[in-house]
């Protein structure tokens, strides 16, 4: 481990931050979308589903281009964000968070939705008869009973965020300390004729972080209410 350069350590810290933030930030959105898709019967449902699934179907580089076009400074959304809120994503780690979140989104939504659809609707109805409105029923019944899917979704998203690089580098480039993640560093190393050593060391680190996330999520799942069924 001492073999790792300070730059590598920076990349590791950054990767961890980006993965954690993107997972946490996208989780509520993913939960909302999963709920809408599993219970809603609105028009254009299939469209939303397809849209959510898109980043999975496309090569990551393409997703990166699309993000660039939409969220770049001159992009319609990016321009608006900058002028309205002063939020800049381009070349910032926040942009990497967006890229990771978008790439992991299909995995998250699918896992959560799977668990939500397995929740017995009769329990939700029972909550209703006890006076719980739709929101309270969601918060007290649907959400906790979907915990397994939420945990799996979060773990998948975190892992994916660690490994994501195609969309990230295309969207926010590969700036050390700002957007250079472990994945980008590994990629760069592999593209250097004598970079195998560094690539291996970094890969090991990525694997360790990924495994830790897994262990933590399993631990939460076991300890959670209703976990040990």
């Amino acid at each position: 481990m001492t073999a790792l350069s300070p730059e590598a350590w920076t990349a590791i810290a950054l990767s961890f931050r980006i993965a954690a933030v993107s997972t946490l930030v996208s989780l509520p959105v993913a939960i909302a979308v999963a709920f809408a898709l599993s219970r809603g019967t609105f028009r254009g449902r299939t469209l939303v589903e397809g849209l959510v699934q898109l980043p999975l179907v496309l090569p990551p580089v393409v997703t990166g281009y699309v993000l660039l076009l939409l969220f770049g400074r001159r992009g319609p959304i990016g321009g608006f964000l900058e002028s309205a809120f002063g939020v800049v994503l381009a070349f910032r780690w926040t942009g990497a968070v967006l890229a990771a979140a978008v790439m992991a989104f299909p995995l998250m939504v699918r896992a959560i939705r799977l668990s939500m659809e397995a929740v017995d609707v009769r329990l939700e109805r029972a909550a209703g008869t006890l006076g719980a409105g739709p929101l309270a029923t969601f918060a007290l019944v649907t959400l906790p009973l979907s915990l397994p899917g939420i945990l799996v979704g979060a773990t998948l998203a975190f892992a994916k965020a660690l490994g994501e690089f195609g969309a990230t580098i295309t969207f926010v480039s590969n700036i050390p300390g700002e957007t250079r993640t472990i994945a980008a560093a590994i990629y760069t190393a592999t593209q250097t004729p004598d970079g195998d050593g560094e690539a291996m060391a970094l890969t090991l680190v990525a694997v360790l972080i990924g495994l830790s996330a897994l262990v933590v999520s399993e631990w939460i799942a076991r300890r959670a209410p209703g976990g040990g069924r």
Partner: protein
Amino acid sequence: MIAVDVAHAQGDFRLEAAFAGGAGITALFGPSGSGKSTVIGLVAGLVRPDRGRIALGERVLVDTAAGIHVPRHRRRVGVVFQDSLLFPHFSVRSNLLFGRWFAPPAERRVELGPVVDTLGIGALLGRRPATLSGGERQRVAIGRALMASPRLLLMDEPLAALDLERRLEILPLIERLRDEFAIPILYVSHAVEEVARLADRVVVLDRGRVAAVGAPDDVLKPSRGVAGDRFAVASVLTGRIGEVDAAYGLTPVRHPAGTIWLSGAIDAPGRAVRVVVRGTDVALATSLPRNVTIRTALAGTVDAVATGAGPNATVDVRLDGGDVLTAVVTRKAVDDLGLDAGDRVHALVKAVALDERFQV
């Protein structure tokens, strides 16, 4: 209090039912698959009827013609489901308190302590539903519905999984709810005795239709329906509690036709009381027998004798004072004694055959 008039189809089954329930307990009675749970679901707002109207007092819950469908969480209707449906991720305590959180503070009339005590679930409060026995689950489900302080209680065979002792402990709780808080109850049960003794009104469903509605003693007469089961025949007599016979632990109920002895002391002299007597627990005698352990003998006149091809006959006796008591006896006994309308008879009822715990 509750008025239901709905039509609803699910699969091949078609429910078309109209009835009204009063302030007390309205029993839904009928064979398996006759639509009882469906009615519960419609009133609770779990199912939207194809058409119809459901009102609770002044409050319209459903009116398809007017496009009204109050969402279930605004109905304040407590439901004890046929398969308990406890929240698996909550402890028993949290399950019990769930509805309370949502009840308006002013209406939180039911407290945890007494409910837990009566249901005998104090030791279970920290447990998860998955670790409960069948009867324990059902008791927690009853408690959960009660704790929401509902304005109407819907109970779908709440006591089926319970032993008699436990059942007899829970019934007074239900009755207290009805009386103290004036909560009307819609009560599904297969147990004739339970229905006969609890209900103010019985609605008999059969294949989705209302086959009969009325007071228990009217409806449960075999001539009036209920699949002709003689064990379902019961009469309700109204009397006044007298001075307890402390030495023997018996309570006399004064009735114009004689004294009805109840096993056990009920210290409420002067209170009006309804006594439910099963037809099969009544014997008739043309002269008052001596030297028999039967303590209760009520005088009356045979009103009607109904016989058919079967071995049994029902004899309606108009007791002195006006109540009608129906006895189920063998046809042979009717012939042997030559019983006929107009005969004076003594109706013999064993004190021990009456369950004082069911009396009100």
